[in-house]
């Protein structure tokens, strides 16, 4: 495959060839469904249904996207998701930092006990129903707070951030500022946070993607359709309606145009819903990976 391989033991070449064949297969398996959805969203639904379209768009059309444009529920969902993602991520960031920094300080009495109580919740929880009852008891059900407050801190992220504070910011700097009479709050806002941009980026990304993609909390806590985030709207259209279509069409084959369009709308919707995350992906994936690495260090 390349020159370095030439002089190696005889099995080297075949081994390399095998590696590249398997890698190519994996690439195809991962990419094909994604490309198919993209192409199908721009194709004539008849061509998609008949299996004519298999890689590139056939009978190019934007009909599905135009249809979505008039679909109010989708845009309300989009707006709601934007609000939940922004507000939720800000609160996540605030609370996670406020918890992670003090817990990263080795000179804090009681830190081990607190860490134990926090880590414990990763492995044992009261369960779905008692949590639901707490949220209900606080009258958060059917408000936007139900999507923001109950998951204000993700323990895993908290531990990742604490590990970063502990390992990447020299204690000497902190000690020096404290001796100079700097308060801990000022230390956090003026020294620690400016030094922690990488981990803050990781946190924003983790939390934001989490909010953008989540549907379950909305499913259990929201009744009012006006408050539905995008993922719940998608669920209605992509999954719940699918069974309805089946019921209507049954085994009869005469699918009318409306049903055909409904199918291509689904492809387009998938694109519309995933585009924000996937567009930023190439720019930020480095940070995501960094997050996993930091998280893998034992705190």
């Amino acid at each position, binding site marked *: 495959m390349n020159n370095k391989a030439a002089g190696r033991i005889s099995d080297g070449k075949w081994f390399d060839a095998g590696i590249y064949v398997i890698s190519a297969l994996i690439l195809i398996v991962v990419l094909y469904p994604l490309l198919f959805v993209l192409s*199908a969203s721009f194709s004539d639904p008849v061509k998609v249904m008949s299996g004519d379209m298999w890689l590139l768009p056939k009978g190019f059309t934007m009909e599905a996207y135009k249809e979505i444009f008039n679909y109010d529920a989708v845009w309300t969902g989009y707006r709601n998701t934007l609000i939940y993602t922004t507000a939720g991520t800000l609160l996540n960031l605030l609370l996670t930092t406020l918890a992670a920094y003090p817990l990263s300080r080795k000179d804090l*009495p009681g830190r081990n006990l607190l860490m134990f109580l926090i880590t414990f919740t990763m492995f044992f929880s009261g369960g779905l129903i008692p949590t639901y009852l707490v949220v209900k008891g606080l009258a958060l059900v059917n408000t936007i707070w139900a999507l923001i407050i*109950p998951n204000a801190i993700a323990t895993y992220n908290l531990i990742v951030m604490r590990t970063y504070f502990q390992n990447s910011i020299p204690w000497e700097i902190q000690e020096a500022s404290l001796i100079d*009479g700097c308060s801990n709050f000022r230390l956090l806002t003026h020294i620690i946070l400016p030094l922690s941009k990488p981990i803050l980026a990781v946190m924003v990304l983790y939390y934001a993607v989490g909010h953008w993609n989540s549907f379950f909390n909305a499913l259990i806590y929201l009744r009012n359709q006006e408050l539905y985030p995008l993922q719940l709207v998608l*669920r209605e259209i*992509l*999954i719940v309606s699918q069974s309805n279509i089946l019921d209507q069409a049954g085994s009869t084959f005469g699918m009318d145009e409306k049903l055909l369009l409904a199918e291509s709308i689904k492809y387009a919707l998938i694109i519309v819903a995933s585009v924000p995350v996937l567009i930023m992906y190439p720019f930020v994936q480095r940070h995501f*990976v960094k997050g996993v690495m930091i998280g893998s260090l034992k705190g």
Partner: protein
Amino acid sequence: MRHRVQGALVPAVILTPCLGVTTMQTKLKPPAAGIAGTTLSQRERFRSEQRRLCRRILVRYDLYLMLLIPVAWYLIFQYGPMYGVQIAFKNFQPAKGIVGSPWVGVDNFERFFSSYYFGRLLWNTISISLYSLLFSFPIPILLALLINEIRSQSFKKWLQNVTYIPHFISVVVIVGMLQLFLGAQTGFINVLLHAAGAEKIAFLNSGEWFKTVFIGSNIWQNMGWQSIIYIAALSGINPQLYEAAKMDGASRFHRIWHVSIPGILPIIIILLILDVGHFMNIGFEKILLMQNNLNKDASDVIQTFIYTNGILKGDFGYTSAIGLFNSVINFALLILINRFARKKAETSLW
């Protein structure tokens, strides 16, 4: 800027418990000290240690202030439910509240164990988790080993970045895509099967295919992402080990087997422990989305049962009991595997 040791600035809230400790201790200490025949100087030393601890806490009062809201959050949203789980042992009536509802002992548990669904729920939960461990767990490791063997740096990066993408697609979209590809009538694969003259397959509407589709799509979505950690661990292996193995005439396959795998074994064990720690709640949000009446015999798991009977039907006490049963099994498994790993492989979470 204020000097950090300023007693007057310390809020009373934080002062009182601290003082409380000292007064309580001084009250208790003298008689005990008298019995043990402690000398005055020892008592003095103890009290000065107390004072030093108190001072260490007081000086850092603003760190505790920072922790105030997060700790309150943990108490309410994590420990609140743990307190509320007592309704598992009660006949919960919303009007009477958690504390007011009458105790019924283990009735809720008995009802669950003798229920018609118990066997099916337990089997589905355990089998889906087991198959996931068997198939989803090793694949990221294999992928990492594969990526580690690629010589071209740019192709390596490419493959990595592409395999991470599906991780960022939401569950709802993934299940939507499954419908579009595997749907009984209009799914792409069935259209192809039909065109080839084969029978259509009800991938999503039969219990037979449910687990395969569920686990297969999980692997597709997560293998790249989960491989990151192994790739990082592999890049940390000392290159001299590979060189030495090569000198000894080890083939590349042998080098993977005798150098790479032992090098990442500790990480593999840690992740295995963590996976087992979530054994009973594998991806139930996705299962819920994929569930329909036709595949329920294979897709009904403990968590989805809790959702339907608790959230939708309002049988809170009963489903809390089921949830507690689930959590306890999970926790027990975690402790067992951790102990086992510590003994056998000398690697463990704690």
